[in-house]
Every structure is written in C-alpha cells, then in structure tokens.
C-alpha cells in the first residue's frame, strides 16, 4: 500500500514551497513536496540578482534569499516532508503519484489532493525557427544563467541576446559583470518585454544597444557561432529586405518566452487554456479535475515570484481544506472571459458559494497603453472598474474582487476588459 498524504505537491520551487506552507497553516497534517533537482528552491537558486520579495516578504531579497525564506517556513515542520532528486513520472486520476529517485527507486504515494507546481521552461531555438547552421554557442538565457551562477562556466565572451524578456536582460548585466562584451539585445516587438527597471539597470547602465522591432534572420558559424544577421521587421513582424546588418559574436542567448510545463497535467486530461498554456482554474486554483490544484508558472507565466507565492498560498489553502472535507459548498459557476485588450485572466472561472467569495484576478493585456479603465462587466452592467495609469503586456495586473461584488454575479459569465479613455 502506498503511503497516504493529505496533499502531494509536484515541484519544490517557490510555488510548491509556498503551497506547502499554506497547506500546513490550513490544517493539513501530512504534506509531501517532490522536487527533481538536487535541492529545493527551483529556478530562484540561479536567479542571484535582487528585486524579489518586495510584495510578499516586504523586503528586497535575492533569488536564493527568497528561496531560503520559503524553505525556512517549512523546515522543521513535522507535517511537511520534502524529497529532492525525485522525479514525478506519472500522476493518476485517483491521485496516486508515481515517482523515482536514486535512493528509493520507483514508488507510488497516494494523495487526498494533489497540487501541480511544476513551473515553466524556456522556448528554444526550435520554437522560433531561426535559419542558419547548428554551431555551438547558442543557449537559452536560463541555461546560460545556470552555467554562470551555479556551475562556474562562461558560455562565451562576445554575446548577442535575442529577446528582451527579463531573463535575457538580467543575463546581459550578468555577462557584463563577468567581463564579457554584450554586443546587442534584439527584440522583435516594437516594445520591450521586460520590466523597465531591468532595461535601465541591465542594458542602459552597460551601454548595451536594444534594437526594437528587429530580429535575427541568420546565425553564422560552422563549429562555433561567429555572428548573426539582424534585420528590421515590419508591423507584421516580417524582416524588411535591405535593412540587414551583421553583428560579430561567439554566443547567442535566447530569451524568447516561457512555456508552462504541463506534460503531467496533459496526460491527466486536465483542461488547459489556449493562451496561458496552463490549467484552467477557479479562484481556489482547482483545475478541471476535482482535487487537483495548480499554482505558479505552471498555470500562467508570472513576472514576479511574489505573485507566484500569493497564488500558491491560495492553492495550498484550498487543497488542505479539500483534503479535510471543508471546502465551501459551490452554489454556481461563473466564467471570467478576457475581452477588449485583456489577453488572459486567471482564474478563468469562479466557483461561488452563497453570498459570493472574494477573489483575486491576475490579468495580462495585449499591448501597452496609458490611462485605461479596467472593467468587470456582467452583460452591460459594470460591476467593478479600476483606473490604471499604465498597462504593459510584461507587467501582470492584479485586481482584488470583493465578495460583495462576486455575490452580484448571478449569470453564467462576466467579462474583464479595457475601456479606452476617449481623447
């Protein structure tokens, strides 16, 4: 017979650790965290820069510092067991979890509930189909980050970065600090996909040019990268002939987006959202499969780990209540549809008890805009509106919806969208 746990958590990064702590606080007596890496903390352990924790811990921390805080919260709690070097191979609908580790071999554990916190992984060169040979020297920014910050190797000396996501920007500074020359950052969008403070402190501080609305049309080199050809793109993101120029480099780092890692969710038959690429969840972070919860980057890619922890605490709380048979009785279900400039909204639906329930909505917009009003509407009726001085696709919007408002959601759906302010 496999051992029975109230909550089994797949992944020991910030989401898994925060979920475990919250499950403990909400009365779960037996919690198990399974982590495939050699230690807990997930990607934070390689994100050695600061800027984490201002919202969640009210203090500015480095990535390892934030991970240390999360680990500290569950350490020495007999209710929480953690296992590293443990890969989850399969999760079944009856909540048995098949795992493997060098010390325990292949084994199963049984959960009353399961929380999926597998995080996300990077898009690779294959995903963006850049023409050229297959020389050495092409890395995802995160792989390079792990080499430089944890293993002690430099991937190269003369660097070009494709994509202006935060990891790419952070790596531009990191490589500069290690004595490398960062030649340029190339971004296909007409705006940056990273936080402004990262543009300023990681590119501008080191005089690294950022080419907006440009892309790499060819990677040169046979055994090792020798350079790239860059071209301007039109408003359909197609390279404009005649605008090409070459940049010499020995290394190309790709920072071209993140994909939630949902192989386990998919094989379970959990419904995924077309745009977030993560499970469709309600405000408790319960997926389409009862008793299965999900939180963090596996649900949708976040820009701040603080929001990952916030979301994981919700999942941990409700998984713990579920395991104890204490979930609030759902009276009706309301779909939350993203419309008019709002690209995605998590949760995608609300499972409301009588009298409503407070919920926090996390949204991303499709394009940058200034002075907009965000509206939650039921039909034509505006239930909640919020003035936002500026919105950007790279910065997630979080809006608290009080129980008194969700109590008014009597129909089957509401919409969240932007009302552009008339000039």
């Amino acid at each position, binding site marked *: 017979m496999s051992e029975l746990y109230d909550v089994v958590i797949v992944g020991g990064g910030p989401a898994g650790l925060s979920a475990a702590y919250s499950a403990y606080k909400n009365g779960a007596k037996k919690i198990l965290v399974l982590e495939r890496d050699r230690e807990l903390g997930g990607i934070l352990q390689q994100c*050695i820069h600061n800027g984490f924790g201002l919202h969640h811990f009210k203090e500015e921390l480095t990535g390892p510092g934030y991970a240390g805080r999360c680990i500290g919260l569950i350490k020495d709690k007999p209710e929480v067991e953690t296992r590293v070097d443990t890969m989850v191979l399969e999760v079944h609908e009856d909540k048995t979890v098949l795992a493997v580790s060098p010390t325990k071999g292949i084994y199963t554990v049984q959960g009353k509930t399961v929380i999926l916190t597998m995080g996300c992984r990077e898009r690779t060169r294959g995903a963006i189909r850049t023409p050229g040979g297959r020389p050495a020297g092409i890395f995802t920014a995160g792989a390079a980050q792990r080499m430089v910050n944890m*293993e*002690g190797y430099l991937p190269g000396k003369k660097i070009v970065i494709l994509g202006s996501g935060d990891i790419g920007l952070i790596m531009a500074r990191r490589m500069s600090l290690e004595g490398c020359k960062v030649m340029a950052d190339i971004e296909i969008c007409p705006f940056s996909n990273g936080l*402004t403070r990262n543009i300023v402190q990681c590119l501008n*501080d080191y005089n690294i040019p950022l080419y907006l609305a440009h892309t790499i049309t060819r990677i040169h080199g046979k055994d090792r990268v020798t350079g790239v050809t860059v071209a301007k793109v039109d408003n359909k993101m197609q390279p404009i002939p005649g605008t090409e120029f070459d940049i010499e480099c020995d290394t190309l780092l790709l920072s071209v987006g993140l994909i939630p890692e949902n192989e386990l969710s998919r094989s379970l038959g959990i419904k995924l959202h077309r745009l977030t690429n993560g499970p469709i969840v309600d405000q408790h972070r319960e997926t389409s499969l009862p008793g299965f919860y999900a939180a963090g980057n596996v649900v949708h890619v976040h820009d701040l780990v603080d929001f990952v922890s916030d979301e994981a605490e919700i999942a941990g709380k409700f998984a713990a209540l579920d395991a104890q048979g204490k979930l609030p009785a759902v009276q009706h279900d309301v779909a939350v549809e993203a419309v008019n400039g709002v690209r995605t909204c998590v949760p995608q639906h609300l499972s409301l008890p009588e009298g409503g329930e407070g919920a926090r909505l996390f949204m991303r917009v499709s394009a940058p805009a200034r002075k907009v009003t965000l509206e939650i509407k039921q039909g034509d009726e505006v239930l909640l509106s919020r003035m936002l001085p500026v919105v950007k696709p790279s910065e997630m919007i979080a809006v608290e919806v009080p129980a008194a408002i969700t109590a008014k959601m009597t129909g089957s759906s509401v919409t969240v969208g932007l009302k552009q302010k008339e000039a």
Partner: protein
Amino acid sequence: MATEKRVMNCIMCPMGCELTVTLDGGKFVSVTGNTCPRGAKYAQDEVTAPKRMLTSTVRIKGGFLPLLPVVSKTVMPKGKVLEAARALRSVEVQAPVKAGDVVVADILGTGVDIIASRNMAAKN
C-alpha cells in the same frame, strides 16, 4: 556654464515616466516629465550620485555547490560596480557559509560589505 539635458526612464514604478533632467555645469537644475515626487528624487539622485546593488558569485571550497551567490549589503556607487565585480572573481571562501555572512568587508573602500545570499552546506 554649459547647460545640458539628459533623458531617462524613471524606475520607481511601472509607469516608467520619461524624465528630462536639466543640468548646469554637471549640477542638477530641474526635472520635467515626472508624475510624482518620487520621480523627481530619482532623477536628482541618478544624475548626481547614482547607486546600484551588486550581485555576483564567488568560488567556494568544499561546498555543496562550486559557487556561492553574493550581494552587496546596501547600494554602492554605480561607478564602482564593475570594479567590485572584477575583484570578486578572485575571491574564494570555505564552506560552510550562512546567508548574511560577510564575504568581503568594505569592498574597494566603499564602506559596503559583500555578503552571502544563501546558506551553503559543506559537501556531504
């Protein structure tokens, strides 16, 4: 004295206002483009005495991992950051180390300590 204008993005909040700072002989005169007082303060600090945090790694002997991440305890003058990072490349410490332990005290005479970002246990 020569007046000079410098354009920069404020990083105090997600608004990212574009600030134009007027300098006279290198001295701060005025700023436009900010929407709040924090922006004005940022612009003034940024043109007179810009400061940054430094995060990097040092080698660690006998540790669970070969590198120890480190961070400056406070911000330091921006102009000293690259030199400090260069200095850290030749530093080696001995495991075990606790988060917050001082790795290099008063780096380059800036008065800023470089401390460990995490615990690092000894190997095995």
